């Protein structure tokens, strides 16, 4: 089986550590992730509000390339990219006429049959079964698993049963030795796209998330989306100013958590790249 890999823009920029840690744990588990050749923008945020055909063509081109490279699965770690790719696949499989139109635009064969995995699905399928052997230094801390909006939605496409109270990340963290706390902000909005335009809204929304996680005793927030990470980590000044106090809870990617539990070095996990310093060894 050939597993493709679509990084998207974030993983090559603001969330390089997500990329590094994902590739590191895949390597550790003996899984090859093949980056698809000449990939392009997924069209997240703007395209689907402006130009329907463009917003479908952009992801479709990436899917078609993956098909042409004979990949069976395509891992898309960024939740926003994943959402665009999955929605495109869903819409084009529902609407055959539209698929014809898009296929013509792509000017390459396009079956629309590749299996797209988000990071949690990838981990569940390929990494979790090998964790028993791979976990070297369990993370014995309380963590808050934060899913955000795009990983589990929309419900009718993702077919997730617990889309208001997902558990998949919690289960993985448990396998790493951590104790995922029971908390109500798993899928609350972090402020998402307002990160740049209206930072104070992010401060309020992300602030409530950070406060609740801290209040319930979590020592780290675990995420699986570059946007969530930016808002919770990079926007800490806005958060602190909304909460009127300094919050020091670190925010890590699930892949980083796995990397650390596998005994990889902090540098291999890329945790030096965060704004809020990460020190998970405190309560070991």
């Amino acid at each position, binding site marked *: 089986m050939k597993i493709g890999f679509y990084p998207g823009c974030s993983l090559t920029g603001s969330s390089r550590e997500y990329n590094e840690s994902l590739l590191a744990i895949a390597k550790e588990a003996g899984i090859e992730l093949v980056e698809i050749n000449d990939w392009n923008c997924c069209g997240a945020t703007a395209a689907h509000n402006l130009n329907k055909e463009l917003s479908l063509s952009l992801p479709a081109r990436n899917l078609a390339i993956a098909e042409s490279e004979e990949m069976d699965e395509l891992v898309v770690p960024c939740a926003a990219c994943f959402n665009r790719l999955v929605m495109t696949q869903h819409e084009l499989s529902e609407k055959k006429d539209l698929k014809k139109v898009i296929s013509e635009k792509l000017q390459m064969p396009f079956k629309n049959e590749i299996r797209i995995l988000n990071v949690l699905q990838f981990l569940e399928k390929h990494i979790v079964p090998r964790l028993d052997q791979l976990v070297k230094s369990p993370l014995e801390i309380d963590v808050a698993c934060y899913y955000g909006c795009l990983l589990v939605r929309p419900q*009718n496409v993702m077919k997730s049963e*617990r889309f*208001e*109270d997902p558990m998949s990340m919690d289960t993985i963290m448990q396998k790493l030795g951590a104790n995922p706390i029971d908390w*109500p902000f798993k899928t609350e909005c972090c402020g998402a796209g307002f990160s740049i335009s209206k930072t104070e809204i992010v401060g309020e929304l992300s602030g409530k998330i950070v406060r609740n996680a801290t209040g319930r005793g979590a020592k780290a927030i675990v995420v699986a989306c570059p946007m969530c990470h930016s808002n919770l980590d990079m926007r800490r000044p806005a958060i602190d100013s909304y909460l009127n106090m300094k919050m020091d809870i670190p925010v890590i990617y699930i892949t980083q958590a796995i990397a650390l539990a596998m005994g990889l070095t902090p540098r291999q996990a890329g945790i030096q790249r965060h704004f809020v310093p990460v020190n998970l060894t405190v309560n070991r």
Partner: protein
Amino acid sequence: MSKIGVFICHCGENISATVDVARVAEAAGQLEGVAFSTDYKYMCSDPGQTMIKQAIKENGLNGVVVGSCSPRMHEPTFRKACQEAGLNPFMCEMANLREHCSWVHDKSEATTQKAIDLVRTLVEKVKLNKPLFSIQVPVTKTALVIGGGIAGIQASLDIASAGHQVILVEKDPSIGGHMSQLSETFPTLDCSQCILTPRMVEVAQHPNIKLMTYAELEKLEGSIGNFKATIRKKAKSIDEDLCNGCGTCTTKCPTKKIPSEFNTGLGMRTAIYVPFPQAVPNKPVIDKENCSYYQKGKCKVCEKVCPTGAIRFDQEDELVELEVGAVVIATGFDIMQPSGFPEYGYGKYKDVITGLQFERLASASGPTLGEIRRPSDGKIPEKIVFVACAGSRDPAKGVPYCSKICCMYTAKHAMLYQHKVHHGKSYIFYMDIRAAGKNYEEFVRRAIVEDEVNYIRGRVSKVYEENGKLIVKGVDTLLSAKPVEIEADMVVLASAAVANPGAEALAQKMHVSYDSYNFFSEAHPKLKPVETNTAGIFLAGACQAPKDIPETVSQASGAASKVIILFSKDELSRDPLIAVVNRSPAPVFSTCVGCFMCASACPYQAIGEELITNRQGKVIKKVAKVNPGLCQGCGTCVAFCRSKSIDIQGYSNEQMCAEVIALLNHE
């Protein structure tokens, strides 16, 4: 020589809007064997039917095709019209030009052409139709009512009062159903038990009603007028004739901490128990799962204290076979399982409860004797949030429909709370207020205006606990259009009304249709709301769809009257669409070779043997024979028969072949 009449209906504009009906009639008129063809605005109307009758008489028609709606709608109408004109009713067929053509296609040449094709197909079939005569079967004038809630109680009483025997089967130890659990009822606020229990007693005392509680339907065979039902009477571990209902056993039973089903887990019961004080019959059963004797082999306290020696530990389930002529299904509904909404914390937080649990809290016979006290610490809640549409109208929860009763009972709950806790504050998150019903809207107004219940239009996204309070996060979509958070002491979820978990299996046992939510399907959404697609089986109450008490009672009486109509005659006619083994001249007698594969395939054991003998009485041949009383006309045997020796009347090999050829060969 075929002289077929073709009658094309406009159905107002339902057909004529997309199909060129005049062209269809014209094209039909040119078909070989068609002697008369016309179109008309409403074929099913009196003038329409008269037109058919006249045409039959004037043209000596020997076959009729009506191109109109689905035969599932009006086949009986037109067959009857033909009969009145002296034509055998089974010489009439219908082409489905509405449901299968005009309603599903846009106006176009292709649509008209399809209508012509459908009519031609049925014309070719009807040419091969043969006059058939209804089969008379005797009617067993006993009704089986399944479910002893208010629907089953009402239906039983009505049928029994008309003078017929009724067997009422209830799966729980007592009849009464959900209605017996309710505190007070909207919109009058009269006490549910006060109006229900007299009816329950009436059932117990009625000479025509045989009550079987703690019993379930195991099997149903046969057909309208002559069903054979097998009932499993679960072992109650009690000799009901000896038990005098004194209740000593239930007070002495040492296993006392079993969550009471009747009190929705808010109260406790013993292992030998009567579900509630007014139960009918007022005799206990032993819950084997929780009884120390059954589980550990020790105890028998009940046996020791029983003054009449009525305890029977060795009692076993009993299967009872009953002959019945009609069945009323009145199995009610259930509420959505708490696992359905983890975001509301049901099951995680003790003070998040369902509407049904609130009924028990508010009920004078409930675990708090009618005081609103929250389950966690028994405190009187100062602030309650009610969440309407908890699951309902939410496709993501698998319940896209409206549960219909929640708007009203939530208003009632808030009202009852305000009446009992004057200084308390109540909030209702709602999507829309659906209060269509006599005095319903006025009732909701009263809750808002007089009892000052705070209605917030918006949905709740999350309920979580913080500092001993339940934080309800929702949105107010009207005035502020902003997220709201309410710190509540208790949250009541108006959980969606869903089909009973056993509904699907029951439907399959009885071969009645059910919808995608496992509610039983009525035969027609408007005109046959109490019938099922299986003749002789009727529906009453919330097993068909969520409904409130008045509606349930009306439907139950409706179902009862259908049963009474059925029982008004000693015999009923059945369609003769059954299988027949052929006969041919000697020395062949029948092409059947007697392999009896048809017999092993028949779902009704309707195929037996027939010995063909010569004049001296010597057996020449053994062939299959269909018992017309048992055959239901599925035709499975027909498709099996290699030598085509068995055929089904009305769907014969010749007819089906003719249809295939006609359908595929136009121009």
